[in-house]
């Protein structure tokens, strides 16, 4: 828990540091009643102060014995199912630009449904269901967005 919290605090301070570096470029017009730097400085300054205090508090405080180290905390985040879905989704967003929304969505849905189904359950029925669900979804989106709401598709 402690290593996890320290990691978060450090990352948080780095992000605020980057944001702080960006607001240094702000300039005030002569007619400005309130400085344009005031609010950003207040937010980033207070945020950084809280972050530093929390970092110090986390380091000084006795560690919480919850039996979980840094890697135990982060292990579920890289579970195969989660990473697979994330990878497929990123690939899907890239595919939209290449092959168009309707085809990319069909491919993504079928791929996702089949690959996420445990191997032991991958029967012909699973493939057919994936195909039907994907076709219905694409048809539904087309009908609602393009025909009814007259919106654009990606």
């Amino acid at each position, binding site marked *: 828990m402690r290593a996890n919290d320290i990691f978060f605090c450090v990352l948080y301070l780095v992000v605020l540091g980057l*944001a702080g570096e*960006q607001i240094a470029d702000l300039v005030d017009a002569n007619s400005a009643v309130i400085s344009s730097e005031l609010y950003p400085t207040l937010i980033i300054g207070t945020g950084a102060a809280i972050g530093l205090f929390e970092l110090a508090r986390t380091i000084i405080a006795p560690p919480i014995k919850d039996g979980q180290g840094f890697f135990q*905390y982060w292990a579920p985040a890289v579970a195969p199912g989660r990473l697979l*879905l994330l990878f497929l989704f990123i690939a899907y967003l890239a595919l939209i630009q290449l092959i168009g929304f309707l085809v990319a969505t069909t491919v993504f*849905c079928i791929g996702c*449904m089949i690959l*996420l189904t445990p191997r032991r359950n991958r029967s012909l029925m699973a493939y057919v269901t994936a195909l039907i669900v994907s076709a219905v979804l694409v048809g539904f*989106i087309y009908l609602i*967005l393009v025909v009814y709401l007259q919106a654009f598709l990606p």
Partner: protein
Amino acid sequence: MYDLIVAGASGVFQPVTLLGIALGVFGGLFIGAIPGLTSTLAIALLVPITYAMNINLAIPILMGVYCGAISAGLVGAILLNIPGTPASAATCLDGFPMAAKGQAIRALGLGVYSSMVGGVLAGVTLVLVAPLLAKVAMSFGPWEYFALVLFTFTCISTMAPPGRGLKTFMAAFIGLTLAMVGLDEASGQVRMTFGITQLQSGFSVLPALIGLYAIPQLLEDTDSIGRQTNVLSITYNLREFMGTFGELVANKWHLLRSTVIGIVIGILPGVGPGLSNIVAYGSAKRTSKNSHRFGQGEAAEAVISPEAANNASMGGALIPMLTLGIPGDASTLMMLGAFMLHGIDPGPLLFRDHGDLVWLVFISYFVAFFFCAVAYHFFIPIVVKAISVPRQYVIPVLLVLCTVGCYALNNRMFDVYCFLGFGLLGYFLQTARIPVLPVILGIILGPMAETQLRLALAFGHNSIVPFFTRPGSAVILIAAIATVLIPLLRRKKPLESAQETMQSEASASIDR
């Protein structure tokens, strides 16, 4: 006022709007019943799709989804021992044991009726209190609004687990920092864009909200794919279901107390049904004559209390959202996003300038509960089926709907990439055990805080004294300080008493 009620009613009682509410309720019931998919996600999915609709249709549909999804959480809690939404976490404690004893219809009946009664009573409170609060809020200046934003953040930090309060503040500061990206309207300068042109208009609020909520939740949901679910089977009997209403009447005081708890917790900014159901359950256990039977699936009040409270929180949460523009919980935060998307800024001026819209919200709230009650009476076996829908079919469908929704807002892929980026941020925060809600509140309330602070300083000639001398602002600031200090003092008390005990034990041992 009468003409506003008529205008609101005529907006709701249109065939298309009624159909929209009914479909919204069914959609909400379906999504809410699936464990892991919350009302917030259900609304998040729908908000961008309603963008192209008339607001008179969009808001009632969203109200339908909101009511349906919150109340559907009880189905998973009772039949699966997994709450469909966090709002039904306490329902598991007695709902599932009751169902396991062969009384699933009783448990569902108690849950459904208490949800409906709690929700409707909260709706009545909403109708009575919101216009009064809006009148009070009309006298608010920028000092009070800025103080309210501070109060919102202190409220959520209070609800954080022990030792995590400051991290909640840090999460809020992440949101406030992200909200600063883009053009500063006062000075005409761009901030924190890192040279990226698309960032000059800042982050669109909805892709950020949807990404922060949907992606972490859907990624986490992949863990349950292929897992064996033991759903208790039910043989539905309408007469038996309706018979539970008598038990509800017999427990009217528990029902009323839980409803009041739900409304009060709902009104508190940033805290909603997720907490109220647990507090109401605890309160019912303390005051019940059958407290020894809690947890065994025998006491009706153990199911009634959490369900009445979580639905009552809905009405409560809408009060600050409509009157002050400050969301009561994550779902109303999404509703706030929907209003903003349609160019309507909730707050006291909403009651003055768009009174018909306020009544549209009120009336569609009650109509949604009516449809919800109808759906539960006649279609409960279908809602039950939603629990066992294989997750591998639901996840990609929801991801695609989110993608389409984010794109449809501005017709640009940049918003979709923002959706992914915010999703990854939410996933990181969730894994690091940092709450996501303060980030979203920061993004939503950041611009309001900045504008109000600027105005307050400009009106006060760069002085912060009016923050403390204006009665409204001073009261809100005192409340904000109290919400931080009271839990700290309460936590300290047991420590002090423990130290005293240790000292007395030590002195006693020395004496021996």
